[in-house]
């Protein structure tokens, strides 16, 4: 049945005419069979077709084969929900419902996810943010704790509803959407001059990750292969972004365990890593570095040498600062066994990135769907316990691995041009780009119209999968474990809200 499905690799494109429009029952059955057989949903979305019906597109990943399967169907009012059988698909179905008013029939948890106005039914009034019916636990001594959207600290807004029995959290529900800027809607009809800047600000701490995915899409749809020099610089920038965030997060975890020494050092070391990005492109978050066709800044011998010297000093400081944290019994005791997500649950929820790897799942785009500059990537860092400590340990090992990758790549910078012109995009094609951002798998999918403009642009931030992981990690924990669990995931609100 699924034998005739279109199979592509990362950064491939395929003509829309080559993706057969399957009848809905066949489409749903195919997804069901593939997911039961170990595939993952990397993207699943609706799109205004040319007709009254709404098209459904699903991209499934077979990590073992490094293969992406593209499926297509359509419907006018509803489609069967697979959420009860495959929880990893539940948010995608809710998103389709919210954006295109197509009802996933049989969805067990059909609530708004971003409280955004319907793209299709303009008369329908949007759900009011925060107005949802939380899942409630009943019984004597059960109480509810509501936090947010404005919550303590310098942090993005979100609403958290804890169902507690005494100090024990029975269930945590996370309701987001406060940061919703209508990004996907804004991208339709593009690319425009502003598109690149919007990608850079899609999730600020993942500027390189998201902008890389966008550039890869423009290049595959524009028929351009970037130069080795450009690919290498992008790969360096991506690892610097991972380093800065991981080091910052180890510091934040340290702060939340009350171990302030490492927290202070990591805070300033993170800044020094951001400054390396600024040395390359003038901006600490890597803004202005990437462009479709390559990069805007070259790194010559002298700059590479300067960066390598700074990198050595930073690595030395980082190792010293984080060793204190990972060698302190009181710190380890605070993280050990807290916020556990088992491998089975992580797989069921479709977790990605360090959160998945900490639960024993080998999931890393750099390993399964390598890009042109990933030839030096060896293997994903994996832990098995699935608790806060495992997530912290994965970060530690990825910090070491990223230092090595950046050094190696700076030492062997290929000579040559760093930017090529990109022609207009192929009309009526679909392209898929995957990037392993520091939080995990970033997926961008573009469908072009007959003039080569974006008819639909779909973004999946790793946080889209992983917020459910945080909610599950809190089960059976104390409410005071929340900050620590939250930091161990450190998910993006705006990346989810778009």
């Amino acid at each position: 049945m699924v034998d005739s499905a279109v199979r592509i690799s990362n950064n491939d494109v395929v003509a829309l005419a080559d993706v057969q429009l399957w009848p809905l029952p066949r489409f749903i059955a195919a997804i069901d069979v593939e997911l039961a057989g170990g595939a993952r949903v990397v993207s699943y979305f609706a799109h205004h077709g040319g007709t009254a019906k709404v098209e459904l597109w699903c991209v499934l990943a077979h990590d073992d084969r490094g293969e992406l399967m593209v499926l297509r169907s359509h419907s006018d009012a509803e489609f069967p929900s697979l959420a009860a059988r495959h929880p990893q698909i539940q948010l995608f179905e809710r998103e389709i419902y919210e954006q295109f008013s197509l009802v996933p029939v049989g969805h067990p948890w059909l609530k708004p996810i971003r409280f955004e106005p319907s793209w299709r039914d303009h008369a329908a009034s949007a759900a009011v943010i925060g107005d949802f019916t939380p899942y409630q636990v009943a019984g004597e001594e059960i109480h509810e704790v509501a936090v947010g959207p404005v919550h303590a600290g310098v942090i993005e807004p979100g609403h958290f509803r804890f169902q507690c029995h005494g100090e024990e959290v029975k269930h945590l529900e996370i309701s987001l959407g406060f940061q919703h800027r209508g990004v996907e809607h804004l991208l339709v009809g593009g690319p425009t001059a502003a598109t690149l800047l919007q990608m850079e600000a899609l999730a600020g701490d993942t500027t390189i990750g998201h902008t890389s995915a966008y550039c890869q899409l423009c290049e595959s749809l524009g028929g351009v292969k970037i130069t080795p020099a450009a690919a290498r610089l992008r790969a360096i920038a991506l690892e610097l972004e991972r380093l800065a965030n991981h080091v910052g997060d180890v510091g934040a975890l340290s702060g939340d365990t009350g171990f302030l020494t490492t927290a202070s050092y990591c805070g300033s070391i993170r800044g020094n890593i951001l400054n390396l990005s600024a040395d390359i492109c003038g901006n600490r978050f890597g803004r202005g570095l990437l462009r479709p066709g390559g990069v805007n800044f070259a790194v010559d011998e002298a700059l590479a040498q300067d960066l390598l010297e700074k990198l050595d000093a930073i690595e030395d400081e980082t190792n010293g600062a984080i060793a204190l944290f990972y060698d302190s019994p009181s710190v380890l005791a605070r993280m050990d066994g807290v916020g556990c997500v088992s491998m089975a649950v992580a797989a069921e929820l479709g977790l990605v990135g360090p959160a998945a790897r900490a639960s024993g799942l080998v999931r890393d785009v750099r390993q399964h769907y390598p890009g042109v500059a990933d030839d030096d990537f060896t293997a994903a860092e994996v832990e098995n316990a699935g608790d806060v400590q495992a997530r912290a340990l994965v970060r530690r090992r990825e910090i070491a691995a990223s230092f090595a990758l950046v050094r190696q790549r700076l030492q062997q910078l290929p000579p040559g041009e760093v930017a090529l012109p990109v022609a207009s995009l192929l009309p009526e094609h679909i392209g898929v780009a995957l990037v392993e951002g520091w939080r995990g798998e970033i997926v961008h999918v573009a469908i072009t119209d007959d003039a080569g403009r974006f008819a639909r642009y779909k973004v999946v931030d790793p946080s889209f999968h992983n917020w459910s992981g945080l909610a599950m990690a809190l089960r059976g924990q104390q409410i005071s474990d929340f900050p620590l669990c939250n930091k161990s995931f450190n998910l993006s609100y705006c990346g989810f809200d778009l």
Partner: protein
Amino acid sequence: MLKIIPERFRQGYRTSAFPRREPQLSARFRGVPQIDGGKCPPTCHYCVDNCPMQAITRVAGKVVIDLGRCLFCAKCVCPHDAISFSADYRLAVRERRQLQLSADDSLELAQPLADELRRLFGRSLKLRQVSAGGCNACEADFNVLGVPTFDLGRFGIQVVASPRHADGLLVTGPVTANMRAALLDTYAALPEPRLVIVSGACAISGGPFAASAVAGNGVDELLPVDLYVPGCPPHPYTLLDGLLRLLGRR
């Protein structure tokens, strides 16, 4: 403990000598743009046409960059060499109109608060931060002011959790439709007198998402703003410089 002490010595003293000494920023940093009117041919529209944010106009023949919309992407740098980005990180101003930077003009940097407010807040300012659709870059580079390098606390400026304990709001993001009510509620919870500081292009003008129907066009449509800090995101020193100027400490 025995490991912490030698590590403490190894890591050394990290707090910068700012504001006594000017910071060393990376060589490619893009600060205040310089517009050389003399090099600007009167009929040329290169910068106006190339700005992805429509931040550049010609007013009475002079090129004007709206730094409240500018993302410092440098797409306006023209073949006539009339626009360049300087290393000057000082960008904060008190009024929105002061962000309109004309050719051959310089920026009117923020003036201190009026005497009474300065007496109240000059030595102790508590801020509550609200992200209203920010991408977490402005938030991150405000947060970083708390690390030892900048050590915001030494200026008497502190971030507090409750708006009831705050003297001012520091807002980031364009104020999305979904955050509007929460932002107004937070502002209402602040005791008077209260300050509003906006950081980043989004909070000033809507930034890269200004064209979206649900993203919003910045904070000053809703609240009176006391300090505008441009950038995408503003460099931590840009923000710190602005805060110190507001308090009359630079």
